[in-house]
């Protein structure tokens, strides 16, 4: 039997009827058509499905949408302001941190979580910060450079 839940996603409030077995990831992609969030391993290893749930990064593939009832979600679609990209999005493009692009949404959200809590990370901090996100193109060097560039561009 379907249940009605309320989600605030990227500042917009949605009421959506879902089945208990649906993951937050499925609801974001298939019901709300926010397909920026990706499904990779479906096991909580790869981080492609990373979103912010009430301010913290989580793997949305391992959460029942019912658990998120009443919660605030931020997905990759929530980062840009109109046509103005988030600095991390610009840096990933500029530094070639995007190869096939599949890990990019999760990677950028993990990077945002890192910079929100630690605006001036070392390279080791950055590598630790994105350790829950796998890039199968193995383009980590450029990803780390992109994140470092954003950190360097903010005033100490």
């Amino acid at each position: 039997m379907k249940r009605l839940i309320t989600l605030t996603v990227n500042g917009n409030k949605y009421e959506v009827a879902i089945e208990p077995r649906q993951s937050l990831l499925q609801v974001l992609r298939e019901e709300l058509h926010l397909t920026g969030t990706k499904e990779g391993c479906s096991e909580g290893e790869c981080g492609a499905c990373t979103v912010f749930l009430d301010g913290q990064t989580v793997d949305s593939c391992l959460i029942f949408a019912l658990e998120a009832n009443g919660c605030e979600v931020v997905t990759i679609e929530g980062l840009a302001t109109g046509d103005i990209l988030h600095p991390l999005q610009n840096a990933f493009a500029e530094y070639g941190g995007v190869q096939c692009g599949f890990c990019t949404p999760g990677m950028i959200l993990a990077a945002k979580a890192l910079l929100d809590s630690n605006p001036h990370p070392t390279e080791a901090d950055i590598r630790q910060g994105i350790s829950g996100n796998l890039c199968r193109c193995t383009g980590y060097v450029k990803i780390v450079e992109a994140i470092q560039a954003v950190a360097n561009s903010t005033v100490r």
Partner: protein
Amino acid sequence: MKNFEYFDPKTVRQAVRLLHTYQGTAKVLAGGTDLFLRMRHRALLPDVVIDLKRIKALAGVRYSSQKGLRIGAVATHAEVESHAAVQRHYGALVEAAGWVGSAQTRHRGTVVGNLCNASPAADTAPALLAYRTVVQIVGPEGERQVPIEAFFQGPGRTALGPAEVVTELLVPPPQGKMGWGFLRRTRSAIDIALVSACAVVRADNGVCGEVGIGLGAVAPTPLRAVRAEAVLRGQPLSPALLEEAGKAAAAECHPISDVRCSAEYRKDMVDVLTCRCLQSACHMLGML
């Protein structure tokens, strides 16, 4: 995935009543990082899922110098790891919780949920054993407390009755300055431990006082190394004594060989890691 009925009770009493009503067909959901996977793989097919996260009484981490630390059933690894009092008084627990999965997993997965899965390799178990944690349980018959070493009964098996839930972990207050060590062997980051060890030590004038040693992935359950503790307690701490304790710990664990490594390797590592954890604890206390 098979569909199920979902409940999110607001009180512990409601949760216990639901568990009692749906005994045998219900599973308790805390962080869900394990339960969700097992349901997706159809290793578990519950008709009913009872989510504890809306129960305020089960949330959060609290500390007082008289009562010690209280970890609620739905407190995440990240909450435990970042709590100021845990960082000040229970360093080994911070270290252990930091080894669990990725940040995303630690933001969601709970320490109590991890213990209730009763994996012999649960990362926080050796530290919670070393700190002499007590598990607070509630069920239809009321509340009871179980020492953590009695809570684990085998791989995937705990002391919980069919309609019981863990409400919190109670970690005793530190007895003065405690030294600690936590070590873990694995192939790579975000991988299950091959072997883990944790030691927590108090010393007075060079003599070992209270001591706790916990071991992971070297027996059917996480294991408290009571014989190794007995080697140390009341004795003047020396490098030779720490080595003797390491040997005692290796003698009292009973690991298996599996795809990850051999029983022999695990026993040797218990010897080495226990000794190094004790060295680390002694260094923190300004000794040896």
